[in-house]
């Protein structure tokens, strides 16, 4: 088939184009023609189709995500906000930290190892492209039931992929989640978070400024990865040999990315780039249109200069390729020699593919013929904006009205059985089988990692300045009340930062939902975003960026709404952090916070087949006072240990604390069933030597205090129930090896 150039398109307006197969609606296709004043070439059609897709354009979510900007608290700490590759916050001492979370759900279902691996690769490049050295990763993961056949198909590969890619990059994995629920069968969620650190002056943005500056592509060569649907266009260029379909899955090479990181950091240190963008979803289409949009608006690219792994790729395929480990930099001509020299030192493929122009069009040629001539903003930023219909689903009121009637433990035997059952439940069991596959030590700055409440990394070896990150979601609560569920997840992540004594600073989010074409799902999404935005405003935490993943559903059944919230915090001296648990006897254990009858949405209720009831209502003022108390307590050295409560309630928290250093505890609880099982938010267990100092803190910050007991012994004693640590450890640690071998 002849090359579809701008000239050909202009001369042949009636040519039928497969816009529908590429996911474009008739009115969108019409709009493209209106923008261009003619029909698009097949390359332009490919670019618009992929850049206007839900994944790239956020067309269904934009109107709601606007709230993060509208309701944003004004803060000097936010150096780069939403809209760039990742947000950047000031953490003091001249350091800026960039962090972001993203999803790679559907590819991980198709090809678990590579889906997870390239998910890590992609988020790391987003951080690198801001000018930062990536310093840590985290992986919140969600799977179908632990004993389901398909979970056994996807889980090992996903874990191996996260580890295989992250370990090879030299990034410590400092935390994550592993959650099992029927809702994720067929729709596993692979969310990946990365943190990077730099000095303020190092921040890089994605803009192509300065006519005459060079557009430079470096990193891996381009192949046919991830083209998927665009082959519809390209298939006409193939003659014989049947369905030689291009792979829809991206395949990553972490060694190439590691070298890319080192090469890029040297380039940044030498101040050789004006703007930079990594190539992720939609590859070159995205990089060129975004860079051009970010700058003055003009760019010219010679597509045939792109170095290829596969010489048979068509221009449309090259534009759509999602080959990994590639970056696109804007470089002033005076710096190009040095740029090339650094790439040569690291044996990184590098090619000048174009230049910034002083026009306002993105022009792409193929062997001298113009195949793309578009206004870049219309591709990258002015995509369709949908105002999808939303309607509160009928289940909400019905399910909220359900009365939870699950039996709570009261006798000694029941208490022991309940604690052991929760300890061994897949959602609460020891995750060493997973986390031992991740390097937590590389770079030598990891202060906290799994199973601590938050991951913590030292960023200055002299001053001991550090940052902490935690991710949380509670799909049970989001299902019952998406507005409150989002607020509660935010509060939990912030509280996880604070238990170590770090101060929460900024927020990222990964919003995993079903189909936006379902008004009920859209309602859940809108409520979640509204809850998160309101929560962030009230807590004074800016949303720095994030990711939306729609269409997580099988047939007509959507996943439970799963907004994953990531909170970043700062600690001035990592040596003073409050550890999660105690290693000596004779300490007093207290519970901070109030316990209500919050059995609905709990792990206990879930294990007994009950998912209804009402979610708790978030009290963010109280959460904030608790956070302040925890930070003040660290500074005043009041706590020997602090561990927050979440899924599994007090039972899980005590289990984790006694097993950490193998020191038991003797606990006395009134209303023991509710105390052990309830999942009321805003609570932390602390171990102290000086109860008076704790009492003073609790009074000052107006947080309830309940004495639980003392540490010591070789059992977890709760009222009359005595659970030997050996038995508790066995129940807690045998679940994962039994399930996954």
């Amino acid at each position: 088939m002849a090359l579809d150039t701008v000239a050909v398109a202009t001369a042949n307006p009636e040519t039928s184009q497969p816009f529908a197969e590429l996911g474009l609606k008739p009115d969108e296709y019409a709009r493209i023609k209106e923008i261009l004043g003619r029909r698009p070439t097949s390359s332009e059609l490919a670019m618009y189709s992929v850049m206007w897709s839900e994944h790239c354009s956020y067309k269904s979510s934009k109107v709601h995500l606007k709230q993060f900007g509208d309701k944003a608290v004004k803060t000097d700490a936010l150096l780069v906000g939403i809209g760039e590759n990742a947000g950047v916050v000031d953490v003091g001492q001249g350091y800026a930290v960039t962090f972001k979370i993203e999803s790679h759900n559907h590819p991980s279902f198709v090809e678990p190892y590579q889906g997870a691996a390239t998910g890590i690769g992609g988020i790391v490049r987003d951080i690198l492209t801001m000018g930062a050295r990536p310093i840590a990763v985290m992986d919140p993961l969600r799977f179908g039931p632990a004993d389901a056949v398909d979970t056994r198909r996807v889980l090992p590969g996903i874990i191996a992929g996260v580890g295989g890619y992250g370990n090879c990059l030299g990034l410590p994995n400092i935390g994550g989640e592993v959650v099992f629920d029927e809702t994720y069968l067929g729709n596993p969620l692979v969310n990946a978070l990365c943190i990077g650190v730099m000095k303020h002056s190092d921040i890089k943005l994605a803009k192509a400024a300065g006519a005459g500056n060079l557009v430079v592509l470096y990193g891996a060569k381009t192949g046919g990865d991830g083209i998927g649907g665009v082959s519809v266009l390209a298939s006409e260029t193939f003659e014989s040999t049947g369905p030689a379909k291009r792979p829809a899955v991206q395949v990553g090479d972490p060694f190439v990315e590691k070298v890319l990181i080192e090469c890029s950091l040297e380039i940044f240190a030498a101040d050789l780039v004006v703007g930079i963008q990594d190539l992720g979803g939609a590859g070159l289409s995205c990089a060129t249109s975004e860079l051009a949009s970010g700058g003055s608006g003009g760019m010219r690219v010679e597509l045939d200069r792109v170095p290829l792994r596969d010489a048979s790729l068509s221009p449309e395929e090259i534009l759509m390729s999602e080959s990994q480990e590639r970056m696109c930099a804007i470089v002033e001509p005076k710096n190009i020699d040095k740029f090339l020299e650094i790439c040569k030192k690291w044996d990184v493929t590098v090619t000048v593919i174009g230049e910034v122009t002083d026009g306002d069009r993105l022009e792409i040629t193929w062997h001298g013929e113009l195949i793309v001539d578009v206004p870049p903003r219309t591709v990258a930023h002015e995509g369709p904006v949908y105002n999808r219909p939303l309607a509160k689903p009928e289940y909400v009121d019905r399910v909220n009205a359900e009365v939870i009637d699950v039996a709570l433990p009261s006798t000694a035997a029941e208490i022991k059985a309940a604690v052991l059952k929760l300890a061994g439940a897949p959602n609460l069991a020891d995750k060493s089988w997973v986390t031992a596959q991740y390097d937590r030590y590389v770079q030598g700055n990891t202060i906290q990692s799994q199973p601590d409440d938050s991951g913590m990394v030292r960023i200055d070896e002299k001053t001991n300045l550090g940052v902490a990150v935690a991710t949380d979601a509670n799909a049970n609560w989001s299902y019952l009340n998406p507005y409150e569920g989002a607020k509660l997840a935010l509060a939990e992540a912030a509280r996880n930062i604070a238990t170590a004594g770090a101060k929460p600073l900024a927020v990222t989010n990964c919003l995993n939902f079903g189909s936006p074409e379902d008004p009920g799902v859209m309602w859940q999404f809108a409520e979640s975003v509204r809850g998160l935005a309101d929560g962030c405003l009230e807590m004074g935490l800016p949303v720095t960026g994030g990711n939306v993943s729609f269409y997580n559903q099988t047939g007509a059944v959507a996943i439970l709404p799963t907004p994953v919230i990531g909170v970043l915090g700062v600690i001035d001296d990592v040596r003073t952090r409050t550890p999660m648990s105690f290693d000596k006897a004779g300490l007093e254990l207290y519970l901070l916070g109030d316990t209500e009858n919050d059995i609905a949405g709990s792990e206990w209720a879930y294990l007994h087949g009950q998912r209804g009831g009402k979610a708790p209502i978030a009290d963010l003022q109280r959460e904030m006072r608790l956070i302040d108390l925890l930070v003040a307590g660290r500074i005043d050295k009041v706590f020997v240990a602090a561990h927050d409560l979440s899924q599994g309630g007090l039972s899980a928290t005590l289990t984790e604390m006694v097993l950490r250093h193998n020191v038991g505890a003797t606990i006395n609880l009134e209303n023991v069933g509710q105390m052990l099982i309830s999942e009321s938010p805003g609570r932390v267990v602390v171990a102290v030597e000086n109860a008076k100092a704790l009492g003073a803190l609790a009074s000052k910050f107006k947080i309830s205090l309940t004495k639980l007991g003392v540490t010591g012994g070789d059992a977890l004693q709760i009222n009359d129930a005595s659970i030997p640590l050996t038995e508790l450890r066995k129940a807690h640690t045998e679940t994962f090896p039994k399930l996954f071998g």
Partner: protein
Amino acid sequence: MKVGVVTFPGTLDDRDAARAVDAAGATSVALWHKEADLKGVDAVILPGGFSYGDYLRCGAISRFAPVMEKIIDAANGGMPLLGICNGFQVLCEAHLLPGALTRNHELHFLCHDQRLVIENTSTAWTSSFTKGQEVVIPLKNGEGSFQCDDPTLAMLEAEGRIIARYVGENPNGSRNLIAGITNERGNVVGLMPHPEHAINPLTGPTADGLGFFTSVLKAMVK
């Protein structure tokens, strides 16, 4: 006292090894794989990581780097040389040490705090320890299973050239629980676990790893 730390493409724990060298009281010197120049260092460390992505075999390509020619010469002349993890793999591929490291027997990458017993304290890198001393040092690799033929194993045992063994369950299938070995002369040591990650209880399980780095200072003074 200068200790060179080599960086190959894909090396990961070079900065950590340098930190450990500095913490021990020596001065770390960065050595680039393409430069056949040891810059006057008194000892060399080949650090951990995934040099060349573990393509072909771990360490198989790194062993032919220009810097390696100089290192092999110097080691043959008695210069202390420590290979950690991937570095150990390079030393075996370069035939400075016998045997080879292969895939962990359970096929997973394994990162955990490993108890070791130090059995040979006469080498350049282990003199700070006492014979039979138990230490805890992070182990983190996918290809840490030490394999060799029976005659080699017998020789290593007979000559006391196993410098450290895993205590407890065999984490990776290594023959005779071998965690580290030395050459005949005692200047070249290969160690699978990562002492550079155990120099400070703030960031590692213990500070037991520091002993490897302080040992070489004594060796260089002699």
